[in-house]
């Protein structure tokens, strides 16, 4: 009697289990069908090129004539002065531009978060606008501003800050300054939006309490705003680092890497290696993996620095 009940019970269980697994299987198939188009596209346009470029980075040769070269490309990297130039330029841009831009974005954000500021809607829009303007349009305008007879020189001359016009785009130092200003101008507002959004979530009475307790303005910014925005600052630092490591558009349009490679970046060098010089796809792929490794290492360092030290 007992055994019978047990078997029929377990049979029922099995039947129910079977139905459930059928259902689960059809749900799974449906799910996969839904994401299949996206997966196929991702596979063709992301995974395949990534793997293919990894394979390519071990190939040597010109154009479509290539053969396996082992570590030849990596050795070539260490002996290639143009690569060293591009790498050091890129790291210089990174080291100078990202901190300046994030500082500016933070300062703008905290200024524009003050509800008593007059015209803050206008300023918010004005500072955000650059990152939605057309890249080519803004490059052309920057080029004209920093031309020999552009308004930058005219203004500085009129203010008597300089005696002779500066040859912005053909002087190595000033060309870098122009490139850094251009990307800072374009991306500061974008980062500011993240900070503003995060600041809106901070309880205003925290600042009021600090004010009543006599905490000075700079300390409210440094000891309250900055720590509370830490996750967002980390996020913007990582995305900006990645963006600057891949810097291409601005240098391509403004200076074309010149003068004499003073603003050549890794991305521009990759482009030149693949499409401008005698094509050397294998070596170009190796250089692009340098960027990948840099992004990985720098992001990891930033995460470690910003890690929450309280367990």
């Amino acid at each position, binding site marked *: 009697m007992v055994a019978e009940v047990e078997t029929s019970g377990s049979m029922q269980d099995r039947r129910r289990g079977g139905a459930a697994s059928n259902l689960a299987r059809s749900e799974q198939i449906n799910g996969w069908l839904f994401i299949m188009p996206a997966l196929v596209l991702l596979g063709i346009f992301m995974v395949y090129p990534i793997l293919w470029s990894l394979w390519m980075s071990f190939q040597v040769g010109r154009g479509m004539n290539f053969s396996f070269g082992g570590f030849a490309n990596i050795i070539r990297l260490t002996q290639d002065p143009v690569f060293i130039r591009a790498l050091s330029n890129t790291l210089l841009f990174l080291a100078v531009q990202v901190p300046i831009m994030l500082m500016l974005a933070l300062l703008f954000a905290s200024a524009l978060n003050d509800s008593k500021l007059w015209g803050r809607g206008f300023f918010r829009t004005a500072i955000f606008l650059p990152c939605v303007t057309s890249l080519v349009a803004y490059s052309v305008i920057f080029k004209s501003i920093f031309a020999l007879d552009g308004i930058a020189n005219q203004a500085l001359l009129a203010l008597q800050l300089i005696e002779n016009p500066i040859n912005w785009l053909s002087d190595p130092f000033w060309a870098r300054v122009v490139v850094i200003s251009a990307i800072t101008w374009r991306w500061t507002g974008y980062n500011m939006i993240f900070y503003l959004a995060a600041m809106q979530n901070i*309880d205003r*009475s*925290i600042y*009021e*309490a*600090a*004010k*009543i*307790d*006599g*905490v*000075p303005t700079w*300390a409210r910014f440094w*000891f*309250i705003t900055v*720590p*509370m925005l*830490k996750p967002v600052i980390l996020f913007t630092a990582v995305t900006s680092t990645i963006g600057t490591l891949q810097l291409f558009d601005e240098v391509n349009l403004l200076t074309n890497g010149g003068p004499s490679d003073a603003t050549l970046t890794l991305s521009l060098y990759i482009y030149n290696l693949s499409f401008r010089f005698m094509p050397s796809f294998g070596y170009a792929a190796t250089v692009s993996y340098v960027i990948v490794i840099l992004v990985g290492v720098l992001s990891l360092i930033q995460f470690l620095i910003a890690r929450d030290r*309280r367990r």
Partner: protein
Amino acid sequence: MSSVKLRDVRKSFGHVEVIKGVDLDIEDKEFVVFVGPSGCGKTTLLRMIAGLETITAGNLDIGGERMNEVDPSKRGIAMVFQSYALYPHMTVRENMGFALRFARVPKDEIARQVNEAARILALDPLLDRYPKQLSGGQRQRVAIGRAIVRDPEVFLFDEPLSNLDAELRVHMRIELARLHKELKTTIVYVTHDQVEAMTLADKIVVMRDGIIEQAGRPLDLYDDPANQFVAGFIGSPKMNFLAATIVEKAAGNVTLELANHGRARLTLPLTGGTVGEAVTLGVRAEHFGEAGAGGADISLDIDVAEHLGSTSYVYASAGGEALVVEREESRHENGRSHIVVSIDPERAYLFDSQGQRIR
């Protein structure tokens, strides 16, 4: 000296005046509670004392000095916010000591003061925790501790207990009363819980619509409200209001007719009022007497009875007028559908049609 004096203080946001001329004297070491319905301007007035809102017109003195333009940090005040406003990325210890770092207080002195505040508030075991690791009541105590270490002349509290559950509220209320005794400072406290007001205050300030309706000691407001609003606001359950008309006046007393209670008549020992005037009679739930005890008897239909153990509240009505009657013996009255109670003329209040007290 840490008295606070407000003279014809006003506040407008744009064209909207929200504080419409407030005169108030807060004595040194006094516990003053602002009460009033939501939106009456309690928080705004407190923030004006704190210096978080500018004062549109009038005069604010703290400790005998005009403070209208003085920076919040230099007014000798500390404030505890409804949301606690703790710094989420700092430990309890850092939260309490943070502001002192900018007042050039030496490190060991900060540590001493933080430990002292922690002792008063029983926060010692929590000093190294972060706010998110604390319960609501503990956070509240940290916020109070942060105020204590600054050793202010005046404490400002904006609804500090409103985020706590009922039991914790009672507990913290007692803590606050104890704290006031221990610290001996002036406290200005905002709440809309009138039990908190009655139990904590030396002086209650009842506000409505940006003005002070009445200020005084809790029992004075309870025994002798200046108008119908204060009478209805102070005391729980709310005072009952019965529509009436003055039908007779003699030397030293007036006789009323209660419109909704079979034209029952009641004579009160008052001198004000005119014959024929429509008035409102106020009687507290706890002041109804047994039938036939004198005054006027009224008969009520019972809607609901709440038995709280020691006492019961009977929700009843007559002629469309809802009343609450407190009855100590009503647990024996289960099943009855109506009761007869008497109104004691000595414990009834009369208000004119504007809500002002007729004395």
